[in-house]
């Protein structure tokens, strides 16, 4: 018996998938042309499956800031935030995030994944309860698992189901943290945040919202769904990432609870990770400035989002419940999903193909995402590619 025996099922699944579509496991961005285009399989391809919502990964101010930082401060911090890894830039970014969100405290983490791991595993402990939306991201589930709290799911976007579960917990008289997301990463749907806030207030629970996909995308100032829904004061903790609208990598948590600052000392994922490199912090700070004045970018993003959503709807694709920069097509048939995905690639458009169990309901997903950086010509080409593959797969 080998230590690798348990991976045999995985190997068989991979072989099976490779038979259907040999490129699925071999997508490499061979050359990056811009934030919205790369060379894949030797061919320039439009990227309609990234999370570069505002197109800032190639913004000249962000690049200049990163270059300057790497020359001045080096390629890495080589240490934890708790030791030698807190540079002036890390603290400045925490101040700027707190100010942007109008909150008292902020912590910066090395990735968005680590932010969820750190907050959820530390904030809520044994004897306490986390109530999370069933469709929450894997990092939220993993954070819950790492801590000692009791973890209960409520039905996706169902505030009544949440209320029912909070009612059941009432007599336990314990701390409860409710967790939801601003925009759900697979289907691009918003949480019913005003309803969730009303419920959590009624039962005296705490609320954490992961705005990973909604930062820079929703709200007049881009602060996410809580801002758009007008319920920022009802959200105790906002978690987010720098790897989407801010075009870099990293994560954060902001809160009006001053005790948030204590969490960092108790959080293993914070303490035992090297801090973000200076160039990442510098480009994120530059991107955050742009994001605050980025209403034009947001407008362009939403124009592109509505165009793709309406086009796919007119092509009779089973898209998600509402238009958003994440436009997902649900497909029951794996073969059809592979045919459409490969067809799009042949037509010079890359989207994400997501297979169960990573999807919410067991279907396959063609997950497309648009960017403010997509030009009208690129949007036309994306829509034309979908029209072409729709016709080919229907008639083929």
């Amino acid at each position, binding site marked *: 018996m080998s230590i690798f025996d348990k991976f045999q099922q995985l190997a068989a699944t991979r072989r099976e998938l490779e038979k259907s579509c040999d490129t699925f496991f071999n997508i490499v961005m061979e050359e990056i042309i811009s934030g919205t285009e790369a060379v894949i399989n030797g061919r320039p391809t439009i990227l309609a499956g990234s999370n570069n919502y505002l197109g800032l990964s190639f913004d000249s101010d962000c690049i200049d800031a990163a270059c300057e930082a790497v020359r001045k401060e080096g390629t890495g911090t080589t240490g934890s935030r708790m030791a030698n890894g807190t540079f002036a830039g890390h603290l400045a970014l925490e101040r700027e995030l707190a100010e942007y969100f109008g909150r008292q405290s902020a912590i910066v983490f090395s990735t968005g994944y680590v932010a969820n791991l750190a907050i959820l595993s530390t904030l809520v402990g044994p004897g306490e*309860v986390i109530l999370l939306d*069933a469709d929450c991201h894997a990092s939220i589930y993993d954070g*819950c698992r790492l801590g000692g709290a*009791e*973890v*209960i*799911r409520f*039905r996706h976007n169902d505030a009544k189901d949440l209320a029912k*579960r909070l009612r*059941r*917990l009432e*007599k336990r008289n314990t701390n409860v943290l409710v967790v939801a997301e601003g925009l759900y990463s697979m289907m691009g749907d918003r949480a019913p945040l005003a309803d969730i806030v009303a419920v959590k207030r009624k039962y005296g629970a705490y609320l954490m919202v992961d705005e990973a996909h909604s930062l820079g995308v929703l709200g007049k100032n881009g602060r996410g769904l809580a801002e758009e829904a007008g319920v920022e004061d009802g959200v105790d903790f906002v978690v987010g990432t720098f790897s989407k609208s801010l075009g870099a990598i990293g994560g954060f948590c902001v809160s009006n609870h001053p005790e948030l600052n204590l969490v960092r000392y108790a959080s293993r994922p914070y303490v035992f990770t090297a801090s973000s490199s200076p160039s990442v912090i510098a480009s994120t700070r530059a991107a955050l400035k742009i994001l605050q004045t980025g209403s034009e970018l947001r407008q362009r993003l939403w124009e592109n989002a509505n165009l793709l959503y309406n086009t796919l709807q007119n092509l009779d694709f089973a898209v998600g419940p509402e238009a958003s920069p994440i436009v997902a097509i649900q497909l029951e048939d794996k073969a059809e999903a592979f045919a459409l995905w490969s067809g799009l690639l042949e037509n010079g458009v890359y989207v994400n193909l997501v297979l*169960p*169990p990573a999807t919410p*309901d*067991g279907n396959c997903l063609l997950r497309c995402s648009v960017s403010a950086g997509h030009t009208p010509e690129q949007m036309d080409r994306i829509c034309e590619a979908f029209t072409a593959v729709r016709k080919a797969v229907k008639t083929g």
Partner: protein
Amino acid sequence: MRVYENILEELYKILQPFVPQGLKIGEETDLVADLGLDSLKVMNIVESVEDRLDISIPLNILPEVRTVKDFAVQIQKLIGDG
């Protein structure tokens, strides 16, 4: 308080659609090996049990559940906990 037998009865009803032809469901039926349940189906079943018994089942208990009996025992504990 619901007794163990009542919980079993409810579980048999909820699991019946997943029982392959020729198999008789019992306490020792293995949810994965005998019924072929994947994680998605397990979560749907958990929701059905929660609705029928008006309880919330923490994800933390699921690693302890392999058979119908394991599931019934955990549910009984939850109901006992109130």
